[in-house]
């Protein structure tokens, strides 16, 4: 099962993720209809991509009155069944991250589906700000980085 990992300090605000997402799902290049979005703080020169985190205790899944949101056991994604969906937008209201929204052009709920396990946003991200990693190896590189500091101390013989 994969998960999307964000490393915001690597984001260059190029918006390729939004283009890849809208192209894969809506067959058009249109950041407005992407299922993730890059948030900008232009004056501070910061940007952070945000997308559905596929919560284990997903508010959207719990709140959906039509039982249209369910877990994909294989990919771990919380999927919207557009046939069942009654477009009441309750999921949009309860999402604590604001990462489920309504597409006024396609008249449907837009929510990250992890592209059936192979996310397009991670494939096009040129800087590694968005990566698709296995749940079992998530953050291994960050743990290793933290551990390497202790290793450096050990190798200097300071540590008993």
């Amino acid at each position, binding site marked *: 099962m994969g998960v999307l990992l964000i490393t*915001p*300090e*690597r*984001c*260059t*605000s*190029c*918006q*390729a993720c939004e*283009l*890849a997402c*809208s*192209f894969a799902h*809506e*067959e*058009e*290049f*249109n*950041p*407005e*209809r992407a299922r993730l979005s890059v948030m900008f703080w*232009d*004056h*501070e*020169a*910061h*940007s952070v991509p945000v997308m559905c985190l596929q919560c284990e205790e997903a508010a959207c899944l719990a709140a959906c009155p039509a039982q249209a949101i369910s877990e994909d056991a294989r990919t771990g994604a919380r999927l919207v069944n557009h046939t069942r969906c009654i477009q009441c937008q309750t999921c949009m209201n309860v999402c604590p991250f604001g990462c489920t929204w309504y597409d006024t*052009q396609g008249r449907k709920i837009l929510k990250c589906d992890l592209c059936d396990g192979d996310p397009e946003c991670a*494939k*096009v991200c*040129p*800087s590694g700000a968005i990566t698709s990693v296995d749940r079992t190896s998530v953050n291994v590189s960050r743990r290793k980085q933290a551990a390497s500091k202790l290793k450096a101390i050990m190798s200097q013989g300071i540590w008993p």
Partner: protein
Amino acid sequence: MAMTFGWRGQFLRVNLTSGKLRTEPLRPEEAKDCIGAHGLAMHLYGKDVPVGVEPGSAENALILATSPLTGTLLPNGGHYSVVTRATQGARLSCANLGGAWGPELKYAGFDAIVVQGKSAKPVYLWIIDGVAELRDAGHLWGKSVRECGDLLRAEIDKKAHVCCIGPAGENRLCVAAIVSDAKFASGAKGVAAIFGEKNLKAIVVRGTGGIRLARAAEFMATAQRLRHDSATTLLLGKGSRLQGPVLLVTSVAEDTEALPSDGVQPRSCFGCTTVFSSFADDSTGETIARFHVESLPQVDAGQLREQRAFVDLGLDYVSAKTMLASGKSDDTQDQVELAGRLARGELGEKTEAEVKPGEVGNSGCVVGGYVLVPAIATGELGDDSGAALAAAESAGCCPFAAALMKAPEIASLLRSATGMDYSPEDILRAGRRIATAAGK
């Protein structure tokens, strides 16, 4: 309107004298021969403007054009062109700008804008999803590009993108630059002075429409391969070299002492893949520049602030510095204050009308706010590297990545995007024509 692929199939015609706006169809079959961007803008200019018009006259047109690939996943493909006649008797002046303005224009439903006439008072053009209007810009006149962008986004739409001029452009200086979203500037041959001449302060766009392609899978396969290559190959091809004093890349936040290497995020244009790339000298193979940052220890915060101040005034950094150095100033004076006086026309420097052909070149562009990227020297006239660069720029690609975008790649992307038939020979032929017309 018929369904078009790649193209949006229409352009906006603006007459500033009468204040009339009109949407006109852009037939892809007609636009095919000129690729897009530079080529399309020149084609539209040539169709509308008689030979020999004065740069300052109302008949002179100002064309902003995108390519069928602008706003797609083309690597480094967010570029658009601004073409006008800025110097008397010379060739047309072409500026190439990045940032998200070009893609946004396409999402708003237009491939290009043709601006004609001359407004009696300062105006700005506001475009949203196929609808456009001219608005009074009295309150924006004299404002820096950053203030202008902030004011416009606050009063219209906070997600809008702004292409504007600063005080330097208003005063029709030959060293003025057009600035896109306060970050991406091009000072090519006085184009910004024509904005000032026409009393056009800014063009603001917002679009929520999408760009559809004819053959999605085929396009994505080629685009992904090129995106991968651009991140892993050295970028300078034969015949092109980086010139200029420094190459600093990435940006730092406003009002900060932080240098790029102090953990500040790198910034890039829309769709950029080269932000972590290296540039090598093709004769020695030595890395001469890098888009990210740790490799630039010689840069200091004062220099970055100075560049930011120049861009905010709507000045082209390299040529404005040259002008200040050769003019009535000495190095001991505060360069930023001097630049302010230059931009406001208080130094009595040469204006656009007095510039001789060839005097002001495309002296480079500013990327990501602070960063100065020197101009790329292209091959000799008639050499195919000039044609290849012109073709890549006309396809909406960044000149820095032009080495990747060879004619077969451009032809393949255009074929799958538009569904029309392009051959590599068509692309090179068009590139040669555009390069000759642009005097490159």
